[in-house]
């Protein structure tokens, strides 16, 4: 056996170029196979990682995919809207840790405008544990502030301080511009490679303010009240109850209130009469189910001044609509139960979806892309294994004479077989090793360019079952192909192998 090993190594070394080329061809095949698999997994993971950290997305009654597409991907329209007070009601549910409102319907130069709360920036996760962070600026707090996604900033060349006019509806043309309520960019988000990059974020109050346009703009006091109410709602939405975040929220509120309204929300053209009659929908209307008792008191209780503002807000916007809201549960396992409860809400018809599940479902639906990749991978397997076999076979064929010499000297069939199979296996093994190394090396180098260019994060991860199957296939076929020339070498007479004619 030692002799065979030495012979195999010496022989491979003696044919450095052929050996190198054969190994290279196998390595490239393996690179292709493992590479395709890595890309496939990367695309899938990037897709699945579009939204994380949110346990439920709740929208008006409609299809699961409709809710998912309209909220997470900004594709199509929601089937309807949800009352803000419904969100506030569910917020009281013992299983709910936090809620984030999500209001759609406006756009800015083709980019969606999302009305949300400050908690959004804090709660939203993408990919594994990616948090939203800012390349510049901070979260939108006042109703004239917007935060823009990376693509928006890049495409429109916006930076902090750029004024923004929001359009009603999704198209730029023919629809009304909310010119009376101009916004100003206060923050630019870091790139996430999710639809977030293509969105513009404002506060819910911002949306109300531009749609209300002067509804409550009768006096400066009213304007202040509106902003106060906005602040308080933000506070309410993230009732994570931890005192630290509560104090942060308080600070935000104060800052928000303190920000001078440069282009005041409600300038003169007031229509006071349009204001909803006071008193009607006072705090948490009767629609609310028996409130789950042992709740940590919401932060607003702590500060009476804000409390009043809150009351005023409820009073003002009791009928406000949002498109959907995100829910975080205290315990992941309660999400299913909560989903069922929400889907059977008697007050308002809701559809609650678990993003991960819905994304999986969507992937199943648009999985034809994956099937395509799989088919390509399959062809790649076929072609590369064939190529590898040709390379191995011809390199072994060239050695028939050598085999004939060995045979004449007394090497038996087992020796010849062992020698050739060992060689081809060795080549296949080296090829696999180098191929996998190439994938990882290439990935390490190309990871960020690919991410920059295509928005697909290709993770450096351990080889999966599919990859091992590919490698095993390469190894086994490499091993088997060694048998063919061995058998031929053995069958071929010395005449063939040794006379100069051959």
């Amino acid at each position, binding site marked *: 056996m030692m002799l065979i090993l030495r012979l195999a190594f*010496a022989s491979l070394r*003696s044919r450095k170029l052929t050996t190198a080329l054969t190994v290279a061809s196998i390595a490239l095949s393996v690179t292709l196979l493992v590479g395709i698999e890595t890309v496939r997994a990367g695309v899938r993971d990037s897709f699945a990682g579009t939204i994380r950290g949110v346990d439920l997305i709740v929208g008006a009654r409609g299809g699961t995919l409709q809710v998912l597409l309209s909220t997470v991907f900004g594709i199509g329209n929601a089937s309807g809207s949800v009352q803000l007070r419904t969100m506030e009601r569910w917020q009281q549910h013992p299983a709910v840790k936090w809620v984030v409102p999500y209001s759609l319907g406006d756009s800015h130069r083709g980019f969606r405008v999302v009305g949300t709360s400050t908690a959004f920036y804090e709660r939203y996760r993408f990919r594994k544990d990616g948090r939203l962070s800012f390349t510049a600026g901070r979260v939108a707090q006042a109703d004239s502030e917007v935060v823009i996604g990376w693509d928006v900033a890049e495409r429109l060349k916006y930076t902090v301080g750029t004024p923004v006019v929001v359009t009603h509806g999704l198209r730029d043309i023919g629809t009304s511009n909310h010119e009376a309520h101009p916004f100003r960019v206060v923050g630019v988000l870091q790139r996430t490679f999710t639809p977030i990059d293509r969105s513009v974020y404002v506060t819910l109050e911002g949306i109300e303010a531009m749609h209300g346009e002067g509804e409550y703009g009768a006096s400066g006091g009213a304007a202040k009240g509106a902003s106060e109410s906005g602040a308080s709602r933000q506070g309410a939405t993230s009732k994570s109850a931890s005192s630290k975040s509560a104090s942060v929220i308080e600070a935000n509120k104060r800052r928000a209130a303190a920000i001078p309204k440069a282009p005041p929300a409600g300038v003169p053209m007031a229509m006071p009469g349009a204001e909803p009659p006071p008193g009607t929908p006072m705090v948490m209307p009767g629609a609310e189910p028996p409130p789950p008792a042992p709740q940590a008191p919401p932060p607003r209780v702590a500060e009476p001044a804000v409390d009043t503002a809150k009351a005023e807000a409820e009073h003002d916007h009791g009928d406000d609509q949002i498109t959907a809201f995100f829910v975080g549960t205290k315990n992941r396992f309660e999400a299913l139960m909560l989903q069922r409860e929400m889907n059977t809400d008697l007050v308002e018809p809701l559809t609650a979806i678990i993003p991960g599940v819905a994304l999986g479902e969507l992937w199943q639906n648009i999985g034809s892309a994956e099937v395509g990749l799989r088919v390509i991978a399959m062809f790649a397997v076929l072609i590369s294994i064939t190529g590898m076999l040709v390379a191995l076979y011809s390199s072994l064929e060239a050695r028939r004479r050598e085999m004939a010499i060995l045979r004449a*000297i*007394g090497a*038996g069939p087992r020796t010849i077989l062992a020698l050739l199979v060992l060689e081809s296996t060795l080549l296949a093994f080296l090829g696999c090793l180098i191929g996998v190394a190439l994938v990882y090396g290439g990935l390490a180098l190309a990871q960020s360019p690919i991410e920059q260019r295509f928005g697909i994060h290709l993770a450096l991860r351990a080889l999966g079952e599919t990859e091992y199957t590919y490698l095993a296939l390469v190894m086994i076929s490499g091993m088997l192909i060694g048998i063919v020339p061995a058998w031929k070498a053995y069958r071929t*007479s010395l005449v063939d192998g*040794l006379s100069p004619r051959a």
Partner: protein
Amino acid sequence: MSAAVELSKLRFAYRPGHDVIAIDALSIARGETVFLHGPSGSGKTTLLGLLAGVLRASAGQVKVLGQDFTTMSNGARDAFRARHLGYVFQMFNLIPYLSVRENILLPIRLESERRARLGGLSFDAAVRDVAGQLDIARYLDTPIGELSVGQQQRVAAARALIGSPEVVIADEPTSALDTDRREQFLELLFRSCEKANATLVFVSHDHTLMPLFSRIVELAEINTAAKVTRAPSTDGAT
């Protein structure tokens, strides 16, 4: 003691019905040096293949050292060849990526019985011994590619002779050598065979070498199949 080689009613055909070899009887005693000659295509190399047990007779008997090849399995014939035969080819004898020393050592590395016949001699001593006889001891660590054809042929002979095989078969080993070198090579080969007490079956169509051998066999005379299929005019064409 049985004859070194004994053929009887031997028939061989690559394709059924087209006999290449048809020899009724041939016996070679131990220690003989036999010059086997004949025109190209008279079946010399085929006969050597049969003697070496690489080819299997279609009919009749091939006995080497008393063993009947026709009743042995392929594996058994391989093992027998490794133990008892030395083989020198016309050209391209050596494994190019092994050193001279390693080439010579191959047979005893491959076969333990041949190794045992060194009689306690170390590998190195055995190589030096046989290389010394063939006057190539200087080249043991030279790459094969740097040797002349004559030197390569001597290395091949050394490899065939190491471990004292009973029968040495040489297939036109001198055809690539010039006349001076031929005789020199043969002298060395004879001496080594004598020392190892080996029977030499030497195939060539170079009639000038004939007088050096103890016995001459004209294949065309004993191979009845060749007469039918081959014209004698091709003699010396190679």
